[in-house]
């Protein structure tokens, strides 16, 4: 049983530990697991492999934060006005349960930060307000909780817009304006309510690095992040990073690998989110959905037919359903994107720094056009790529604000294959989950262009009943065929079972030769009784 949370002071005393753990989980950078790396939909999988005993994680992944700011750094500006604009957000949240997909988890309380922007809105992290059942705001110096709701969520960029239920609540609070990407080695000030405290806190730090990071909230999306040596702790999430009186980032995650290091979401990503949200709907990022190789080796460039003054990357694989389908071919060399030359390592020059060329794609909104210069069969050409999102990449991202999709028949629980389903076997599902499922999730989409357009279906578990108690396989089994029909989505499985008139249902599983059989009549009769006995309200959320 949880005690009611009726005052901010009790948050720490009653829930401090749970809160801290919850947010630590939320802000730790996802380990470089194979899954996100291998996602074809991601702009470019990182070249590094997970740390191994043979090849320990590079300790030099991030430089040590500068010990002292350079003399020329701007002076800190601790202005009362900033504090007023920074709001504490309490989120009582509840998630779907992917192991019992008809059910929900217990209520969790967590605390984060947001700040006032134009339009009577607060900007914060998506992970601060995800899966909310109740959102409460505490304005600076005001002990009164104010109810609010998330009106826009960008889980792929970990940003959200929150609107108080009381109209005009933020009317007299100064709006924070967005600045620009802070130069390296300059100072930024981060405001927030770390560790669940009810007094605002500010920390100063140097911008020590600007590079792409995996955004831990989705666990798979990579965008630019600002690294500072300011301590950013649980509860800081969603707070503004300020320089020269303007917001230059939104604090959002730390890393267990580096002490006293915090990361912020830069203005470019914030602007992309806000522009996307202008039409009242968040669409996310476009995706070329290709894989490519660097061409740093001179022989590789010569074989590709490149001139000495040319550079670029070679297209290795084109997923069906992405922006590049039908426009790019395997073997094409991408020479330039939106007029910026692509280097042989796949980077482009942006803001004086080199970033992966995929960030040029990310600067676009879905529906806009990307210009590519490419070399194909000895011919140089410019093409325009209308940008779309890939529908199949969501299986790699953590899910929020949705309930699990499932189907239960004869006590057998089926779910689509995705990372949430896999995490029912443990956070380290890459090693702990059924190997066929890992293969299907990570590697099949690297060789089958249509794989991401399909939705593999998994027999997750069994609700024990005499009708199913003797089947040989009932945990984490890929279902490849049902009653002779190929199964490429949860809907197809439901159809194959419900349209079957034969005496038996035959389900073929991922392991070659493996299958299970149900007596159709007995299963039909048992199904409603099983649901009732196990307290399952609905047999499906398709």
């Amino acid at each position, binding site marked *: 049983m949880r005690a009611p949370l009726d005052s901010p002071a009790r948050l720490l005393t009653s829930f401090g530990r749970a809160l801290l753990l919850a947010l630590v989980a939320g802000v730790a950078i996802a380990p470089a697991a*194979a899954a996100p*790396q*291998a*996602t*074809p939909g991601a702009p470019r*999988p990182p*070249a*590094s*492999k*997970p740390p*191994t*005993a*043979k*090849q320990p994680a590079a300790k030099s992944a991030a430089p040590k934060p500068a010990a002292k700011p350079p003399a020329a750094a701007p002076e800190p500006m601790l202005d009362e006005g900033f504090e007023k604009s920074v709001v504490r957000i309490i989120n009582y949240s509840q998630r779907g349960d992917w192991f019992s997909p008809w059910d929900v988890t217990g209520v969790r309380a967590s605390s984060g930060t947001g700040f006032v922007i134009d339009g009577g809105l607060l900007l914060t992290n998506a992970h601060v307000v995800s899966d909310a059942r109740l959102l409460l705001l505490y304005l600076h110096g005001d002990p009164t909780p104010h109810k609010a709701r998330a009106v826009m969520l960008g889980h792929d960029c970990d940003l959200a817009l929150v609107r108080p239920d009381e109209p005009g609540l933020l009317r007299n609070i100064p709006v924070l304006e967005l600045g620009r990407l802070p130069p390296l080695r300059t100072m930024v000030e981060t405001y927030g309510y770390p560790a669940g405290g009810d007094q605002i806190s500010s920390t100063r730090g140097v911008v020590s690095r600007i590079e792409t990071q995996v955004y831990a909230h989705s666990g798979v999306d990579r965008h630019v992040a600002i690294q500072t040596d300011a301590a950013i702790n649980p509860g800081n999430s969603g707070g503004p990073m300020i320089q020269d009186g303007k917001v230059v980032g939104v604090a959002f995650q730390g890393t267990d690998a580096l002490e006293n290091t915090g990361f912020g979401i830069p203005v470019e990503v914030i602007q992309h989110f806000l522009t996307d949200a202008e039409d009242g709907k968040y669409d996310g990022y476009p995706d070329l959905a290709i*894989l490519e*190789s*660097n*061409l*740093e*080796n*001179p*022989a*590789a460039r*010569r*074989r590709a037919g490149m001139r000495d003054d040319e550079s670029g990357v*070679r297209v*290795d*694989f084109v997923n069906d359903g992405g922006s590049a389908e039908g426009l790019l071919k*395997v073997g094409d060399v991408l020479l330039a994107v939106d007029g910026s030359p692509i280097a*042989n390592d796949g980077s482009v020059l942006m803001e004086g720094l080199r970033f992966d060329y995929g960030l040029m794609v990310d600067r676009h909104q879905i529906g806009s056009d990307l210009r590519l210069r490419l070399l194909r069969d000895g011919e140089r050409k410019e093409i325009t790529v209308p940008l779309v999102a890939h529908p199949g990449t969501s299986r790699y991202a953590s899910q929020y604000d949705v309930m699990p999709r499932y189907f239960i028949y004869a006590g057998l629980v089926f779910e689509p294959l995705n990372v949430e389903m896999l995490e029912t076997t443990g956070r*380290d599902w*890459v*090693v702990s989950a059924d*190997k*066929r499922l*890992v*293969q299907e999730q*990570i*590697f099949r989409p*690297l*060789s089958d262009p249509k794989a991401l357009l399909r939705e593999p279906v998994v027999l997750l578990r069994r609700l024990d009943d005499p009708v199913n108690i*003797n*089947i*040989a*396989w009932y945990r984490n089994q890929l279902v490849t065929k049902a009653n002779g029909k190929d199964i490429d989505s949860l809907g197809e499985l439901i159809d194959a079972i419900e349209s079957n008139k034969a*005496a*038996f249902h*035959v389900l073929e599983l991922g*392991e*070659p*030769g*493996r*299958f*299970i*059989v*149900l*007596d159709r009549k*007995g299963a039909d009769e048992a199904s409603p009784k099983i649901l009732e006995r196990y307290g399952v309200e609905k047999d499906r959320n398709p």
Partner: protein
Amino acid sequence: MTVRRLAAFLVVFALGGATAGRAMAEPAHRAGGRQSFENGIVGLTVSAQGWDQDRPWAKGAPQARMALATVVEGPYLLTSAQMVSDATLIEAEKLGGSVRVPARVVLVDPEVDLAILGVDAPKFFDDLKPVPMASSVPTEGAVQSVRWRLRQIEASTSRVSRVEVQVTSLGGLEHPFLLVTTDLRGGGWAEPVFAEGKFIGLTVSQDDQVARVLPVDIINNFLDMARGGKPYPGFANLGLRWQINEDPVLTASLRLSGDPRGVLITGANWGGSACGVMRPRDLLLSLDGHEIDASGYYRHPRYGLLRFTTITTDGHRAGETIKAEVWRDGKNVKLDLPLKAAHTPGDLIPDRVPEQPPPYLVAGGLVLRELDGNYLRSWGDDWRRKAPIRLQLRYWLDSKDQEPGARRIVVLSSVLPHAYNIGYHGLSDVAVLEINGRPIDSIAAAEEAFKHPEGDFHRIVLEPNGQMAQVILDAKTFDAATAEIQESYRVPAPVRTAAPPPEFGAACGG
């Protein structure tokens, strides 16, 4: 049936006739009496050196092992195959003695984890006696465990815990092991176990106080095969993939009336006994006259319910034919099942390849090698978490799936950095599918493929990995760069090939 050729590491010397003329009579001793075995045990000191799996051209650090060997008729010394694997020197010494003499391997069968050693030193065996062999192991009661400690034998009464079917250390065979609870710690170094004065097995591993004893039934079968005077046939395995058949609904769907029985065949491995004989969706009802229940057990006359997969090792050997009965397409079908030797090197990814140096090729700085369990284990005891997941998946999903035209998986294990191979330095542990348009399933195939560049280039196609699909190298400067890299990184030879795996004929078919 054609006698299968065994791999080179299976050194075969027939032992037939070696026992002729020796006195066989041994006094019967009760458990606890030491005189029955103390002149039947010798200590072994084994110097061993495996291969450096990361630099497959180099040997790893030398190691020393202290093990036991048991004197058997011949006279020979019996120990476990693991004790003599990768041995560079084996020495034997007698109880209480101070002189070690060299021993040599006469026969080793890594599949069943047994080895026979000979000692050429004159008079070595004069004051030794072969231990009396039991015909089977007790299933309960007290047994006598021994170990070698400071050149003395330490003995203790232990207790039979149970008989349990487990896979052998190489993973290719299943047979009953005797699990014994003992006070002697740190066992597993081929210590013999006795009951009522007779030898009942060798301890091949020990977990805390529970010793895993390879039972005398298996050892007798091994010694009989070794003495057969013909090429050693080896133990047979079924090479089957199967699932239990406890579900009456599934049984009914296959039109078999009555209670569920037999096991459902889901596949057969190329080279296994069942290949070409049994098919997916057969229900295997009986084997060698033993009825198989729906959980995959049969009733052994001494040990009770045992997994049916042990039938092939229970007094049988490769080369024999046993009877099988399957339910196929609604009918009862009787089959002859010629038994074939378990042969781990016949796997697509052999779990361990004892004695064999890893085949490799250094080509333009790319280090290619054949994938095996030794390589995966080089990530340490925690290799199941640490070894690259894409190689692990191949191991877990495909390791038995060797077939004609796909004999081994060749991996690009690392790149020796050089200006020649710039752009590829970060590549590691990814399977190689093709080189210059030729499919690659051995180091020999890779070596040959590099002799046939595509114009001015070598093109190496990698298994899809999300990082790079193909490696392109300059063919004109390839030989010079390889030589320079070889010298720079002190690689003594750019290539080491291995004898191809044994041929198993046609694929199993559906």
